[in-house]
């Protein structure tokens, strides 16, 4: 039985299911301010942990090039790519496991309709707590995650 507040007790909290998280990747954008760079640095560790613990990645409207992971960020995850020009082999590595060739909006709507059918209309899988992290910034969530980790 782990002691209250110990690392051993904290681990299950880290491993617990979390809400789906949206990242708008900025791999090709220019970082225009120190503020952006500082935020990126703060949340990087948290982001990497999250990527590595993911079991499914739904990648929408991204080519999944080497710079967006190309498998090495989320090697264990099943990657679903929704893109109008998917390529199986991208920058010398497998881009995704499932390719949904589609306009991003139409593809996501089709997936949502499919999820509605299996989960119930407008329902969220109870394992995906939609309120987890609500009202907090990514920076706060990163701090909290790091606090649990450390």
């Amino acid at each position, binding site marked *: 039985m782990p002691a209250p507040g110990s690392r051993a007790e904290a681990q299950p909290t880290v491993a617990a*299911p*979390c809400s*789906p*998280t*949206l*990242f*708008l*990747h900025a*791999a*090709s*954008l*220019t970082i*225009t301010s120190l503020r952006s760079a500082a935020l990126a640095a703060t949340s990087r560790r948290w982001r990497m942990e*999250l*990527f590595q*613990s*993911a*079991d*499914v*990645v*739904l*990648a*929408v*409207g*991204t*080519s999944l*090039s080497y*710079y*967006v992971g190309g498998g090495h960020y*989320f090697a264990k*995850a*099943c990657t*679903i790519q*929704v*893109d*109008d020009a998917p390529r199986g082999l991208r920058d010398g590595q497998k881009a995704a496991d*499932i*390719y*949904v*060739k*589609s*306009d*991003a*909006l*139409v*593809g996501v709507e*089709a*997936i949502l309709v*499919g*999820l509605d*059918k*299996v*989960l119930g209309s407008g329902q969220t*899988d109870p*394992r*995906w707590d939609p309120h987890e992290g609500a009202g907090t910034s990514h920076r706060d969530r990163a701090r909290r995650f790091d606090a649990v980790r450390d």
Partner: protein
Amino acid sequence: MSKLYEALAEAFLAEGVDTQFALMGDGNMHWTTAFAHLPGVQTIHVRHEHCAVAAATAYHSATGKIAAASVTCGPGLSQLMTALPAAARARLPMVVFAGEAPINAKFYNQYIDQAPLVTATGAHYIAAHSVPRMLDHVREAFHIAKYERRPVVLGIPYDLQKVEHTSNQPYETSAIYYPKVGRIHPDPVIVAEAVERLKAAKRPIILGGRGVLRAGARKPC
């Protein structure tokens, strides 16, 4: 009667270019000046050719508009070898107006074969050497840039830029030639497979790229 470089500038404007990032030299000075004098456009002068393309890249990322840069021939163009691959890998719609050495000169010390340099970066190169077809070259450049989403360098010998523009035909933009295919719909079988995977997921992540914005994503009501 106007000069060809003026018609070229107006063609860029018709294609939706409202901002140019430029470093002037003899190969692009006439065009850059003509474009800068057009109504509603902005000219941003940079101190290195690399910056012209890098700034145009950022401009597209920030605004979604077609990116345009301008550099001179030879040594000017050769400075793009770092910024152009980045734009090509990011699949950016960009047109770079580049001068070329005068095609009718016996010798020109800035001459280099520009096409292999540009294509080595992953960008497309159009050597516009036909005066009667000059605006067709512009249209093709924008069509490739917008439709295939890749940077295009339009190389025009600067002695040809200064000839009289005799055509009185209005410029037809590349948009006229886009195939109207509508939004691409997914295969229901593949969608069902994706849904099954998502349903079974314990720690799903949604990763959104620029295609999300192009598809018209917005905040939920």
